[in-house]
């Protein structure tokens, strides 16, 4: 049997050396075809996995972007940002209302403090009036004291005159003693009143000074507090509006992100087209491998076999790009491919 094979090989080599060489080459490349087929299949699978992973990430990115915008929106509205369940509370106490209420409350508080300060100043004025009255009382006491002194002198002179008169002046002397006694008593009382008035005056002056100092400092503090509170609330309001602007910007960026993802999805779908084409190449390689290995039997009619091969290609192809490429690279297939040519319009929609 080996000898027969050797003789056939020698005869083939003698009659058609190029065909014999092609047979040898085909036999040598046959195992390679299987490797190429597997490699292409694995590549297509890897690419599909990668695109699937990218798409999954896109979904995650878009979802997180939407959640971030929604949470920030709820937070700015005054809620906790943790869920839609806080929405009514959020409406009742949104940031703008909060700032406005704080402004009104603090303004009211400052007005009350100012009123307190005004009342203190009013008290100071009343104290000053009281001081004036006390000075008048002191002056009156001085005059009473002078009158008492003059009465005392008068009583002394009367006493002297009563002594000069003698027996007849005894009654007059008693009156002079009584006047002298009243003058002493009056002097004691004015001294007592003067002491009390002096203490009263010192006390009123001290209180007035304290109140004056307190009221002055209080007004300064109120003015400073008002400026400070206004500046803080203004700053808070500014930050709030900046945050709102930032949120609007984030929402816009989120929309842009969704738009970018949409464009990427269109681009990524070319992987599906590529994989389909790789799949068809793999099928063709498998068919070629079977044919070369003699699995399909012995072909004798070249034209018929060529038609069969073109038919298989035509059957396998699922897109215009493949048919166009086959028509260019395999002239024998051009007619068959043109016959079934469609239009390559991506995204084309036809409703029936």
């Amino acid at each position, binding site marked *: 049997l080996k000898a027969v094979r050797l003789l056939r090989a020698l005869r083939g080599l003698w009659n058609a050396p190029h065909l014999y060489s092609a047979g040898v080459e085909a036999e040598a490349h046959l195992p390679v075809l299987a490797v190429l087929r597997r490699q292409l299949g694995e590549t297509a699978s890897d690419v*599909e996995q990668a695109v699937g992973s990218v*798409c999954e990430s896109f979904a995650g990115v878009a979802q997180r972007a939407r959640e971030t915008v929604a949470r920030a929106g709820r937070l700015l509205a005054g809620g906790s940002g943790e869920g839609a369940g806080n929405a009514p509370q959020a409406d009742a106490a949104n940031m703008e209302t909060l700032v406005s209420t704080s402004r009104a409350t603090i303004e009211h508080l400052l007005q009350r403090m100012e009123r307190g300060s005004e009342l203190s100043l009013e008290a100071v004025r009343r104290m000053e009036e009281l001081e004036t009255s006390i000075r008048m009382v002191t002056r009156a006491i001085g005059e009473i004291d002078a009158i008492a002194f003059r009465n005392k002198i008068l009583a002394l002179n009367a006493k002297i005159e009563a002594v000069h008169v003698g027996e007849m002046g005894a009654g007059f002397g008693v009156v002079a003693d009584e006047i002298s006694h009243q003058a002493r008593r009056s002097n004691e009382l004015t001294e007592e009143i003067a002491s009390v008035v002096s203490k009263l005056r010192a006390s009123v002056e001290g209180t007035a000074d304290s109140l004056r100092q307190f009221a002055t400092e209080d007004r300064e503090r109120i003015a400073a507090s008002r400026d400070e509170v206004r500046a803080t609330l203004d700053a808070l309001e500014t930050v709030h509006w900046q945050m709102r602007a930032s949120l609007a910007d984030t929402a816009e960026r989120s929309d842009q992100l969704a738009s970018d993802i949409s464009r990427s999805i269109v681009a990524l779908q070319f992987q599906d087209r590529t994989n389909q084409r790789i799949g068809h190449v793999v099928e063709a390689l498998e068919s070629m491998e079977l044919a070369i290995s003699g699995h399909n039997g012995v072909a004798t009619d070249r034209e018929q076999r060529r038609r069969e091969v073109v038919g298989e290609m035509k059957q396998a192809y*699922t897109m215009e790009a493949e048919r166009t490429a086959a028509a260019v690279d395999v002239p024998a297939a051009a007619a068959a491919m043109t016959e079934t040519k469609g239009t390559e319009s991506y995204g084309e929609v036809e409703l029936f």
Partner: protein
Amino acid sequence: MGRTALVVDDAMSIRQMVAYTLTQAGFEVVEAANGREALERLEARRVDIVITDLHMPVMDGISFIREMRTKQATRFTPALLLTTESQAEKKQEGKAAGATGWIVKPFHPEKLIEVIGRVLP
């Protein structure tokens, strides 16, 4: 109440892209890798729309649509073919099988949602 879509494609990446697009538009999505699996999904639950590939192993898109049209529950469910194929004769086959429309891949997400909006009852 949200609508449900059945996405049928042997390519996992395409299923994911269509599912992502539909989920963004508020759909709940059910997936299947071929026509046979898709019929099983339809046995288990009602869907509002079907988006299917044409060329798939086990059962292709046209056979699947033809089969779903024989069932009472899915006789009038909109079914769009989403495929790389653009041959007129294939489109005719799809139309004869009962497809509602034909979209050539790659699809534009916004356009897909717009088309779905047009065919949904």
